[in-house]
């Protein structure tokens, strides 16, 4: 459905994206993941035919974005970074205007309008001026706009920004329900979002693709050791040396709270059984014992750190942790 070959975009001397190649099959949901300024928006703008690429070709539904932009535009629903709403119009007027721009008329338009208002639960605000709506509602109006003509390809630039936790979950459900019949590209810097809704993740950093795979594969690929967290009630001073004696344990780090240890062991070995036995025989009081799997967040930080030196990951970390409750809740679960 979407086929991008070696696209490069330069603004003067600055290269925003550099030889990016990827493709999206019909019915697939792909996430663009990357720190701010990585080139996600630029890539999406090229696909939406807003700007042409400096080099390379981008094709949507078999049409070239540079040569047949009108054909491409007919087949995509695009949600830019800022919801493109006119404040002086009501929700209904705005969506009617959008439909007419896309050549929809009569009953066709009214039914599409009702459907997209229903999908995004805008019924209660349909007669209100968009200028008086909150950020979350405007974002939903923006999404309703992208979905209005039921396009086969959806390009969503940070679709859940500005929504409250309940709405975020609803929008993710909506995107999931679109998978199968629609091809979706969405950009995000909220990692759990990518895990929650996407079949495939493209991590983009400094304008280049640094990884592309399913979320599970990505974390598996980068895992170099198994990690186990153990919490003891009454740990004696020498418990660390005693634990180290267990064969297979590579390293032990003290955890964040007293009595908590992070144990690193060789890949493919589950030493929980042995650890439990040692703890029980010494009567240290086992409070917690669990494996820690590498989250997409770790993968992301690992990859972007690797690519951009040490200054960038701090920023990336700040942007991922500042995303509020939902992000952290879902990482924990």
């Amino acid at each position, binding site marked *: 459905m979407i086929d991008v070959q070696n696209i490069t975009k330069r603004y003067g001397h600055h290269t925003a994206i550099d030889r990016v190649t990827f493709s999206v099959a019909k019915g697939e949901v792909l996430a663009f993941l990357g720190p701010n300024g990585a080139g996600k928006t630029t890539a999406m703008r090229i696909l939406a035919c807003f*700007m042409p690429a400096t080099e390379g070709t981008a094709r949507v539904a078999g049409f070239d974005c540079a040569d047949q932009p*009108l054909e491409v*535009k007919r087949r995509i629903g695009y949600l*830019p970074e800022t919801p*493109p*709403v006119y404040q*002086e119009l009501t929700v209904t*007027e705005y969506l009617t205007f959008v439909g007419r721009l896309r*050549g929809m008329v009569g009953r066709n338009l009214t039914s599409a309008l009702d459907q997209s208002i229903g999908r995004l639960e805008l019924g209660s605000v349909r007669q209100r001026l968009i200028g008086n709506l909150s950020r979350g509602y405007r974002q939903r109006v923006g999404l309703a706009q992208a979905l209005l003509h039921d396009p086969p390809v959806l390009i969503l630039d940070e679709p859940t920004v500005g929504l409250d936790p309940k709405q975020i979950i609803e929008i993710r459900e909506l995107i999931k329900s679109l998978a199968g019949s629609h091809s979706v590209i969405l950009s995000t810097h909220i990692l759990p979002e990518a895990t929650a809704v996407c079949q495939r993740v493209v991590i983009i950093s400094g304008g280049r693709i640094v990884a592309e795979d399913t979320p599970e594969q990505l974390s598996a690929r980068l895992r170099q050791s198994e990690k186990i967290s153990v919490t003891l009630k009454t740990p004696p001073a020498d418990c660390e040396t005693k634990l180290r004696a267990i064969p297979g344990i590579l390293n032990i780090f003290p955890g964040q709270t007293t009595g908590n240890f992070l144990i690193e062991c060789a890949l493919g070995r589950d030493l929980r059984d042995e650890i439990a036995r040692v703890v029980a025989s010494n009567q240290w009081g086992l409070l917690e014992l669990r494996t820690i799997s590498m989250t997409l967040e770790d993968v992301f930080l690992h990859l972007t750190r690797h690519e951009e030196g040490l200054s960038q990951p701090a920023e990336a970390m700040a942007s991922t942790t500042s995303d509020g409750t939902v992000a952290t809740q879902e990482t924990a679960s």
Partner: protein
Amino acid sequence: MTPVQAIIAKELRGYFVSPIVYVVGAVFLLIFGFLSYLYIVFAGAQAIQLMQMQGGMAQINLNDLVFRNLFSSMRFVLLIILPILTMRLFAEERKLRTFEFLMTSPIGINEIVAGKFVSVLLIFLGLLGLTGLVPIVLMLFSDFDWNPVLSGYLGMALLGTLFLSVGVFASAMTENQIVAAFVSFGILLTIWLISGLGGLLGDTTAGRIISYVSFMEHYDRLVRGLIDTSDLVYFGSGLILMLFLTHRIVESARWK
């Protein structure tokens, strides 16, 4: 409804929900009414003077004393008022980031430019139509020749259309509405002033070319009641040139 009609309808709504049209319209009509009043009172004073000198009823020419002066003065009013109407057309879209949405809609840039231009043209023609009350009221109380008045109105409509196209062009260049208004003032005043340069150079080739480029002599002929094809061609080609440049500017905005 076609996409162009949809854009026109949306722009018209935008004008009427914001105070721009009401404020600009009120000022425009007020100035038109006030100028008409001044010229009519002036004509009346001249008539009384003539009557005292000649005795009996004096015949005064309203076409010369009122309408020609009025239409000449309106040049400046249009130059001030119309950029205010056009400044928001593209600048606001760019500021509010709806420009990206328009550009990714399945319509051509031609249609976007045409829709926006026609919407502001309709507003202007509506305002101009309202000023028609002045000659209609005058007709009830006096006698004048309608033909030069109509050609004067044609002149104002053509001049206004040209000014609007310059305004739309200026609006496409920036995302700041104030800058857009000032750029169109600047362009229009420059075109106005170069007619002085043309007059200075006199009847030389350069002088004739410069005089032709300025709208002054073309408008003056229409105000005098002279409808010449070359003037219509001037206004028509000026309009097409400005809309073409607007198209290029909008197109190039995507590359930045």
